[in-house]
């Protein structure tokens, strides 16, 4: 669509990240979702490319979880088209790793950390067979990666919120997904641990795309390649820059300043 030769203006945007023929893995075209005639998502267009870290910010109730569920094929849009690796989401779920916001589980459920992660291997296992050595090996690897290996025999409900979060990330990673969807992952993580969390994502990014949704503006990070704002409509310029007018349109109120941890800046100087 964008013809680079057409760009006659000399001042080209520095922060625009060129897509060096990165493959598009998820595409949403003109997506509308409504519950009982109330629109939750309006005309969403979004492309997610390989090995890209996209942050989506927006207020609570802005449709962030719904958008993720559309990508997962859990919610059928009333209009529009979703493609995951060129096919319907439900046909390509094995490529998606999903970390839900508050996993809907019973804290007293008798299940160990390792068993939780093994559930993620379901798609790679066979019917009528239990999980094999390869599955267990893989579960160990991802638990090690998220730093939870020592807790593998613990009952999941005995862990802290942040530890549970890491187990659910491991559960999502255990199938080697091509894209990782994270719904408000920082809600249960201590601010001090956030850097460690982002470093983990940075390592993961070499192997997969990451989509992180959050209502928390301070969660926008230097590690993100692109940032979009969502409040029923998506404000997105395929770049890392957030425009103040988009933020204000998203949050429906003036946004003063986005204060970040020091060494990075998402907004242009203004």
């Amino acid at each position: 669509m964008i013809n680079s030769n057409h760009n006659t203006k000399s001042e080209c945007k520095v922060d625009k990240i060129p897509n060096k023929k990165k493959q598009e893995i998820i595409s949403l075209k003109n997506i509308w979702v409504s519950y009982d005639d109330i629109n939750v998502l309006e005309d969403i267009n979004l492309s997610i490319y390989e090995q890209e870290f996209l942050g989506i910010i927006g207020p609570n109730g802005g449709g962030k979880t719904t958008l993720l569920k559309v990508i997962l094929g859990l919610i059928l849009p009333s209009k529009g088209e979703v493609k995951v690796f060129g096919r319907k989401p439900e046909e390509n779920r094995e490529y998606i790793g999903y970390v839900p916001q508050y996993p809907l589980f019973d804290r007293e459920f008798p299940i160990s950390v390792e068993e939780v992660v093994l559930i993620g291997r379901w798609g790679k296992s066979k019917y009528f067979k239990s999980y094999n050595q390869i599955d267990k090996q893989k579960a160990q690897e991802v638990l090690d990666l998220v730093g939870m290996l020592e807790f593998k025999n613990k009952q999941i409900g005995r862990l802290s919120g942040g530890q549970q979060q890491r187990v659910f990330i491991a559960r999502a990673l255990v199938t080697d997904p091509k894209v990782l969807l994270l719904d408000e992952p920082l809600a249960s993580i201590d601010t001090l641990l956030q850097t460690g969390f982002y470093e983990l994502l940075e390592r993961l990014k070499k192997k997969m795309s990451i989509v992180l949704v959050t209502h928390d503006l301070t969660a926008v990070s230097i590690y993100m390649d692109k940032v979009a704002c969502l409040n029923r409509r998506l404000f997105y310029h395929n770049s890392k820059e957030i425009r103040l007018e988009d933020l204000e349109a998203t949050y429906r109120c003036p946004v003063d300043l986005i204060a970040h941890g020091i060494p990075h800046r998402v907004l242009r100087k203004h």
Partner: protein
Amino acid sequence: MMELLQYEFMKNALLAIILASIACGIIGVYIVVKKIVFISGGIAHASFGGIGLGYFLGINPVWGIIPFSIISALVMGLVSKRTKIPEDTAIGIIWALGMSLGVIFIGLSPGYAPDLFSYLFGSILTVTTTDLVVMLILDLVIIKVVFLFYKEFLALSFDDEFATVIGVPTMKLYLLLLCLIALTIVVLVRVVGIILVIALLTIPAAISKQISTNLKKMMFVSIFVSAVFGVIGLILSYQLNLASGATIVMVSVIGFLLCQFLKLCKR
């Protein structure tokens, strides 16, 4: 004590308790961890329609209750998940529908309905060899299916949304689980009756959940717990001349309260 075992009906009653404990121990675990107690109660009550159908057709009510409970399980599962009717409303309606059909069938049947009361509240001392064979076969079916789908039922019970995301056919498995609940109700109907069945489906599993670290262990513990309650209830009901089903339920409830009390003391 041992002289009780000389009676044929006592031997049958004890066997019935063991067979019932296996079914409710295994399936009760899923009912408790997946928190589907209400729909299970609904299936149990709706299956009264099958008992009525059995009387109406002049056959053993067991042959009416098996298909009827399975059909009501499937209808409840589908209506509550696939329509816009809220789940608890759908269950409530089908619950009452099944029971009313049962009452109407019985009303239409010629003569009166012998031992109708025993299907409602259980009558463990009148269990026949045929009943025991039916219970044994249903137990084997339940064990086999749970053994084959252990992974899938675990994924479904722990976090069904995530299970759906990774491609587990959660809806089909949920319906299969409801059918197993229906079969378990058939196994338990002679012991405690359809009205009281929900006690055995929840209490032993709820107790074993407190001390178990995984589902398999939880199943074995709850089989053991329900067998113990069953035997104590049976002996008490015989010696005190009380209704057997209700006595077993009372013993279970007291056992549950004791466990809660012990848990409080431990803290």
